[in-house]
C-alpha cells in the first residue's frame, strides 16, 4: 500500500489507485471533466492538473497512479496557473450561451471558472461555428459548440452499452462530437450520457427549456419501474406551476449506489413516471358519484365486519410498500389475500432491467403474499407455494364466493378480460378499488378511493436481490388523495383491529419484529443506500466497477 501525501495530508491506498482517487479519500476535490469513476480513463481534458514534487511538469491526477512517498500539491501557483490555462483553452471556442443553456447552474465550466478560472478572456477571434441542436435520438439533444470533447459519452456508449453510436470526428478546433452517420442514439440507457456530460452539450429533450435548474427541488427515491429498484433523485417543481406545464416531476437523475445501479438508469424507468401527474384519481367515488373518505371507510369496515373472513378477498399489489403489504396481511388476517397477479414478464437485459415490472415482488414474497417465481434466478427469497394468487381470488369472486373484494391498483379488465371483470363486479357484494389512476376497473367498482403514488409516500421496497430500500416521500399527494398505509390504519381502527403504529417508520418496526428476514433493520440502518434482508444474495454489481 503506497503512502502518498496530498496537500500535506497522508493517506495509504492500494497500489494502482490514481491521485484523483486518493485525493477523494482525503476529501480533497480535484476538478475533472473527462474522468468518471464508472468509465475508463481518458486523460484528455487536462483540468485535473496537479503539481507532483520532483516532477518538472504538472501531471494529470486522473491518470497518475500513486507511488510510495509521492508528494502532491493540488493547490499552489503552479497547479492553479495550469488549470486556469486549460480552462482558457477549453472556453476559447465555447459559445457561452449560459443564459439559454439548460446546464447553466449545474455546469462544471461555470463552476470551475468561478473556482479556478477567473481570468480575463484574451480570445478575440471569431469562434468556430458548429451545429446547435442535433437530435441524437428520442431523448438526447446535442449542441456541438458547447461540447468540450471530454469523450465521457463516447466511452459510455463504447464501454457500458457497447452500442458505439457516438464518436469524435475531425480534428483540432473542428473536432466535433457526433453520431455515427445514419445512426440514432436510442439504446435502452441512452439518457445516461446527458447525466455524465459535464457541460450543456447533451441535454434531455423532455425537459429542455422547461425549468431553470435553480428552481428544481430534489429528493432521493428509487425507481418503481422494475424489480431492480435503481436509486434515483427526483427533480421536481411545486411552487411554480407555470413551469413544466404544471407537472411536478421535471426530470429524474440516477443516484449512485454501487450495489444496485452504480451511476446509471434505464430510459424506461427514467421516463416511466408520466402517470404521476396525469390521469390521477382525485376523489372518493361511490358508483361513480363523488363521496367522502368517511363514507367509504365506514361502508367498507361495516362490510368487513358483517362478512365471514373467508368471504373477503384482497388482490394486493407488488407496487405497494412492505409496510402496506404488512398492514394488509395483518388487517385481513383470515381473508383470501394475495399480491401476485398473472402478468406477462416484460423486457429485460443482463445489466439493470428486470422482467418483473413490480418494485416489490420480493417484499410480497417475504411477507408470504406471493409465491415463488418459476425459473427465478435471483436467489428466490421466500414465497411459499400455498399462497393463493390473484387469479384464484378473482375466480372465487366471479363464482360468488366473496362478499368483499378489494383491488389495489390493478385493472381487472386488463388482467382477466372484460367479461370476467364484469362478472366479478356483479357477483361480489362489495367491490372496492384503490389506486392512483383512472382505469377500466374504476368504472366497475362500487367504491373507488384515490391513493398516493409511490413518490407521494414513505415506505420500503425489497428489490430483486433482496435489498430493502426506502422510497422516501418526494412530495405530498394531491388534495383528497391519501397514502395507502394511512387508509389501512384507519380501516383497522374502524373495523375493530387498531394497530399501535401510526406512520411508515413504526409500521416497519412492527414488521421487522414480526418477520425474521427483516429482523434488526430500521429506517436508519436502511439509510439512503438500502440494506440486504437476512439470507439475501444481494450481490455487488459485476459490470465495470473499475478495479484500480
Amino acid at each position, binding site marked *: 500500500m503506497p503512502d502518498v501525501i496530498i496537500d500535506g495530508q497522508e493517506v495509504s491506498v492500494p497500489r494502482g489507485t490514481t491521485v484523483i482517487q486518493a485525493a477523494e479519500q482525503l476529501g480533497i476535490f480535484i476538478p475533472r471533466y473527462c474522468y468518471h469513476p464508472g468509465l475508463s480513463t481518458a486523460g484528455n481534458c487536462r483540468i485535473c492538473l496537479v503539481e507532483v514534487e520532483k516532477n518538472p511538469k504538472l501531471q494529470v491526477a486522473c491518470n497518475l497512479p500513486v507511488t510510495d512517498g509521492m508528494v502532491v500539491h493540488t493547490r499552489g501557483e503552479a497547479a492553479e496557473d495550469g488549470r486556469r490555462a486549460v480552462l482558457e483553452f477549453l472556453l476559447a471556442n465555447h459559445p457561452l450561451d449560459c443564459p439559454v443553456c439548460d446546464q447553466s447552474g449545474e455546469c462544471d465550466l461555470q463552476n470551475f471558472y468561478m473556482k479556478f478560472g477567473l481570468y480575463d478572456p484574451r480570445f478575440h477571434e471569431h469562434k468556430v461555428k458548429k451545429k446547435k441542436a442535433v437530435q441524437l435520438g428520442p431523448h438526447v439533444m446535442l449542441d456541438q459548440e458547447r461540447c468540450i470533447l471530454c469523450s465521457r459519452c463516447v466511452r459510455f*456508449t*463504447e464501454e457500458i452499452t457497447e452500442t*458505439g453510436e457516438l464518436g469524435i470526428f475531425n*480534428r483540432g478546433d473542428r*473536432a466535433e462530437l457526433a453520431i*455515427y452517420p445514419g445512426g440514432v442514439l436510442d439504446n435502452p440507457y441512452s439518457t445516461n450520457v446527458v447525466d455524465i456530460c459535464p457541460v450543456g452539450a447533451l441535454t434531455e429533450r423532455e425537459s429542455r427549456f422547461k425549468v431553470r435548474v435553480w428552481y428544481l427541488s430534489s429528493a432521493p427515491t428509487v425507481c418503481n419501474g422494475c424489480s431492480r429498484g435503481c436509486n434515483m433523485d427526483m427533480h421536481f417543481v411545486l411552487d411554480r406551476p407555470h413551469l413544466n406545464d404544471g407537472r411536478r416531476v421535471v426530470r429524474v437523475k440516477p443516484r449512485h449506489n454501487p450495489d444496485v445501479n452504480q451511476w446509471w438508469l434505464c430510459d424506461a424507468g427514467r421516463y416511466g413516471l408520466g402517470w404521476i401527474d396525469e390521469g390521477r384519481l382525485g376523489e372518493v367515488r361511490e358508483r361513480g358519484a363523488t363521496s367522502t373518505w368517511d363514507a367509504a371507510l365506514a361502508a367498507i369496515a361495516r362490510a368487513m365486519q358483517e362478512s365471514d373472513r373467508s368471504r373477503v378477498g384482497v388482490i394486493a399489489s407488488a407496487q405497494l410498500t412492505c409496510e402496506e403489504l404488512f398492514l394488509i396481511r395483518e388487517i385481513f388476517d383470515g381473508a383470501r389475500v394475495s399480491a401476485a397477479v398473472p402478468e406477462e414478464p416484460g423486457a429485460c437485459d443482463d445489466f439493470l432491467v428486470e422482467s418483473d415490472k413490480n418494485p416489490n415482488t420480493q417484499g410480497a414474497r417475504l411477507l408470504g403474499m406471493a409465491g415463488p417465481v418459476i425459473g427465478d434466478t435471483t436467489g428466490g427469497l421466500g414465497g411459499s407455494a400455498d399462497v393463493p394468487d390473484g387469479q384464484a381470488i378473482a375466480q372465487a369472486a366471479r363464482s360468488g364466493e366473496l362478499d368483499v373484494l378489494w383491488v389495489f391498483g390493478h385493472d381487472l379488465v386488463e388482467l382477466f378480460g372484460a367479461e370476467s371483470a364484469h362478472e366479478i363486479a356483479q357477483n361480489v357484494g362489495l367491490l372496492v378499488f384503490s389506486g392512483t389512476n383512472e382505469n377500466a376497473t374504476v368504472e366497475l367498482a362500487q367504491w373507488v378511493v384515490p391513493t398516493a403514488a409511490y413518490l407521494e409516500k414513505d415506505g420500503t421496497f425489497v428489490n430483486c436481490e433482496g435489498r430493502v430500500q426506502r422510497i422516501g416521500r418526494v412530495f405530498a399527494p394531491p388534495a383528497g388523495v391519501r397514502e395507502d398505509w394511512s387508509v389501512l390504519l384507519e380501516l383497522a381502527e374502524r373495523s375493530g383491529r387498531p394497530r399501535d403504529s401510526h406512520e411508515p417508520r413504526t409500521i416497519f418496526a412492527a414488521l421487522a419484529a414480526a418477520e425474521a428476514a427483516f429482523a434488526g433493520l430500521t429506517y436508519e440502518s436502511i439509510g439512503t443506500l438500502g440494506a440486504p434482508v437476512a439470507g439475501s444474495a444481494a450481490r455487488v454489481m459485476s459490470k465495470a466497477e473499475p478495479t484500480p
Partner: protein
Amino acid sequence: MALPDELLAELDELILNYPDRRAGLIPALHRCQEELGGWLSPEILEDCAEYFDMEPVEVYGVASFYPMFHLKPVGKHVVGVCRNVSCELRGASDITSRVCRVTGAQAPGRNSTDMRFYVEHLECQGACADAPMIVVDGVYHENLEPDDVDTILGELS
C-alpha cells in the same frame, strides 16, 4: 465484407508488422483508399471496422481525423497544395488560385465538375527547401511558379 480478397490477404500480412492488430488501421485505410477508388466509402469503413474488430464509429473517428483520408468521392487526379509557412511565404496562395483555375475546382476541398480533379490544401510536406510545392497523385512538384502549374496539369491524361 466487400473488401477484395487480394487486399484482405495483403492486410493479413500487413498487421503482422504491429504488436497490436488495431495499430494496422491507418496503413490499412491508406491501402484501401489507394485500391478502391481514391476515397473511403462508409462500406469500406465498416468493412475495416469488422476486419479490425472495432466499432465503425471508432474507424470513422480515425479516418475523419486525418485529412489524407477522403470520405467523399474524389476526381481522377488529386492535387494537393501545401499551405504551410514556407510555402505560404513563397507564394502558395497564387499557386492555389492557379490550380483551381486550371482544374476548374471552385476551391480547395472541392472536385472539378467534370470529376477530373480534386483539389485540396496540405500541411507541410517536408519540402520547404524547395517551396512552394504541390503534390499531384502522390508525386511532388517543387519550387513552382504559377505557370508551372499549367504545364504539370496539362501533361496529365
